[in-house]
């Protein structure tokens, strides 16, 4: 899959955020020291792993950068115990899934972390919990509490 990767200003990405669902849930650490909340990154690629764990779950997305290099992004989510109350299971996201994530990039040079992300299908359409019985429930992302939310 051809992947797309770009960085924009926060204001520009607010528009993208309107079309997806997501809510902050539990906080294990403040996001600000780890992620730049003035920037957003869009990553489109293929899931390589999904760690459904505590204190944080991670989705690993292999994506091609604008330089043509393959990069593995680590998308930090909430705690599995909290996400499971929203319908998530370790099977919700699986290796090989095509996915799009928009969120704050990690601060340290050479790292590819992503926080507070909105997840959708690559074309921007909502992800459904299709592997659950109730597939009418839209996928709800459990992410770190953005510092901008006044935590």
């Amino acid at each position, binding site marked *: 899959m051809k992947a797309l990767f770009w960085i924009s200003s926060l204001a520009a990405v607010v528009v993208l955020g309107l079309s997806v669902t997501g*809510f*902050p*849930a*539990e*906080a*294990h*650490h*403040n996001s600000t*020291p*780890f*992620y730049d909340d003035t920037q957003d990154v869009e990553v489109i690629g293929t899931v390589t792993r999904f*760690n459904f*764990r*505590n*204190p*944080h*779950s*991670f989705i690993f997305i292999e994506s091609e950068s604008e330089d043509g290099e393959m990069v593995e992004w*680590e998308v*930090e989510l909430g*705690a*599995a*115990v*909290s996400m*499971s*109350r929203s319908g998530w299971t370790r099977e919700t996201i699986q290796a090989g899934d095509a996915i799009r994530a928009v969120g704050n990039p*990690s*601060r*340290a040079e050479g*790292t590819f*972390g992503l926080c507070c992300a909105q997840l959708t299908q690559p074309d921007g359409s909502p992800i459904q919990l299709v592997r659950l019985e109730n597939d009418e429930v839209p996928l709800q992302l459990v992410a770190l*509490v953005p*510092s901008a939310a*006044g*935590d």
Partner: protein
Amino acid sequence: MRETDNLVLSRPLACLAAAAALFAVAMDGAFVGASAQTAEGVIPDFVGVWDGGGRVRRINGPNMPWTPDNFPVLNERALAYQEVFDEAIAPKYDCVPSASPALQYDPYYMEVVQWPDRVLFRYEKDDQLRTVWLDGREPPLNEYTVQGFSVGRYEGDALLVETTHFVFDITGFDDYNGIPSSQLKRVTERYWREGEELRMTLTVEDPMFLREPASYTTRWLPAREGYKLNPYDCDAEDARRAVKYMIPKYR
């Protein structure tokens, strides 16, 4: 002798106490004596699984539950620690459990179990179990732990808990502000019911780092019927994964 030692139990309560005492002996042989009753012989009912998540209260963070109004007054030692604190060394990134006064406000579920001689607080966060002894026992000499040693008593419709003997903790005040706590930390909690809510006022004292006690009040709501706590099983690899995303404070 403690006031509760002289109480007369009602017959049903006495039966319950006897059954629980036998169970306690069977469990670990540590049962000392039934004393979990108020002066009226009625124990306030806190039993159950309680929701402390985002639908109940604001999520914790640098300004929650410690807002500008109740933020502790730090002494010079605490300010010095705060100045040099490096987030990367926070024990939570190696799955060291959260402790009082942060544990109670972590946005997870909690279960309360009442036995005649103790109250058990089970936390979904970090799989923690706190035992609050009601039988008048003293803290073990020179034994310091992450959760400390808790004793309690009922007073009217409330449960009062006092916890001491905490181990030194570099982030022992909360998970966000880089304030340590010492072996002198003393946490008192008062639990009571208001309708379906469980409420608590917590006060933390630590003369090693705080100029005066600091307090917050919070609440829980009943979990949905049949909900059972899930294992946390903190994963050390994923707990520390994000640390590399920070620009290092020290090299």
